[in-house]
């Protein structure tokens, strides 16, 4: 049975406490491009300290939603808040939020380390932190080489290193597992779990369930720009194992 409610009422109340506003909140968030509605009235709140999977078929509006949340695009209607404020009004946002939207947002001729140094300078982050995040994502051998020679997995990790520079409390990742091999996906899962274990928050999108089913605490499921469900996995009958069936029912695809 399809249900469209978001959080149980008790949790919604809890999230209203001023000291613990949600990490991410969308209120009637919409984006239209010409006649096409990419995001259609999304309303949800993401609790701190959780890993939330943002699931939906390709073209469901996941990337557009993330761009709206991060202030890269303007909503046609509604608003979005990160720790209670619009992203563009956050003070030193890099220290609150780390985000990776594309796997290849680099100048091909610049070394990975210089890419990180430029971002660190802009946000007054020390050079020693640059070397720290390079180590954290295990990119040391390649860090001083131009990005054009990097594999997709190395680019994903460089993007992640940039997101981690400011030691943020929230990570927003768009399809971070794309193009990773099995070992890379395994590494990413471990990384996200370690990150969330420090009482930090992750919003991670994917069009592939298997990548995330055993990593996330809750799921936001969207299709055609609309929110279909926001569920904690421990409240789902059958837990993570049932997620695939649940997802396919919601998005109107029959399981094979």
């Amino acid at each position, binding site marked *: 049975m399809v249900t469209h409610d978001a959080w149980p009422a008790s949790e919604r109340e809890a999230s209203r406490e001023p000291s613990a506003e949600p990490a991410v909140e969308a209120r009637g968030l919409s984006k239209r491009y010409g006649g096409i509605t990419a995001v259609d009235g999304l309303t949800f709140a993401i609790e701190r300290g959780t890993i939330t999977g943002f699931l939906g078929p390709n073209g469901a509006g996941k990337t557009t939603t993330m761009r709206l949340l991060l202030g890269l695009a303007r909503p046609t209607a509604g608003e979005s808040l990160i720790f209670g404020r619009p*992203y*563009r009004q956050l003070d030193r946002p890099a220290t609150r939020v780390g985000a990776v939207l594309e796997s290849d947002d680099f*100048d091909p*001729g610049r*070394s990975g380390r*210089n890419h990180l140094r*430029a971002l660190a300078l802009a946000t007054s982050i020390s050079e020693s932190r640059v070397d720290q995040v390079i180590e954290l994502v295990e990119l040391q051998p390649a860090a001083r080489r131009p990005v054009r020679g990097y594999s997709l997995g190395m680019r994903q990790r460089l993007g992640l290193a940039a997101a981690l520079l400011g030691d943020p409390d929230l990570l927003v990742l768009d399809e971070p597992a794309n193009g990773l091999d099995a070992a890379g996906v395994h590494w990413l899962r471990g990384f996200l779990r370690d990150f969330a274990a420090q009482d930090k928050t992750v919003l991670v999108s994917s069009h592939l369930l298997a990548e995330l089913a055993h990593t996330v605490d809750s799921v936001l499921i969207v299709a055609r720009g609309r929110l279909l469900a926001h569920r904690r996995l421990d409240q789902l009958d059958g837990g993570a194992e049932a997620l695939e069936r649940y997802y396919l029912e919601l998005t109107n695809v029959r399981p094979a």
Partner: protein
Amino acid sequence: MIAQLLSELLKQRTTRTTWALLIWMLALITLIVLLHSFGLSVSSLRVAANQPKVYGWGTSIGALFAALLGALAITSEIRTGTIRPTLLAVPNRTLVIEAKMIAAAIGGVGIGLVAEALVCVIAGAAFAVRGIHVAITPGHFAQMFAGGAAAAALCAAIGTGVGALIRSQVGAVTALCVWLLLVESVLAGELPSVGRFAPGASAGALAGMLPSAGSSLQLATPAAGALLLVAYAAVALGAGALAIEKRDLG
């Protein structure tokens, strides 16, 4: 602002585009100055008023490449997607554009000085080979270097604004080349009363050197040239920042 400026200067040093631009500029100046040094007759070049037809190319070409440096600072970020991490770290887009503009202007000073120096070396050598006395006074040389550097800095700022406005790399580079190489020479020839107020002519006035000096084109004074360039840069900044502020990026 200082933090963002340091970031932009690091980006400028660590992209191949900057060094490629410099090499192309050196090649173009060498070619054009040699063509003019040896193409014009000895009797014509002995006339002091005609020597800017050779020496003036440093300012024009320096201004063009400085404008390209500025335009590429923003358009290459949009093309590669680097603009996304940039704006995630610093969501104040106007601040980012201002920092890019100042960084481009600083790079522009370097480009202007290198351009003038190369012209002096090549033209000096060519004139010596042909037995032509260089009639430009030390004061004029000083104005040529100081004015050429200042003109290149301001053109770099204009280029940044044009880049932010057009956003497409090919579009911005084409627009700047067509304007500075084509439209301005047509204006100088056909409509000098308007052409003398154009950015390229203003750069020439500021440096006291224009290849077309001595022709029917009446140059503005150096101070007027500087003021005009500052005004163009301010308009470019306003328009570019507004365009970047309004647009969805990433």
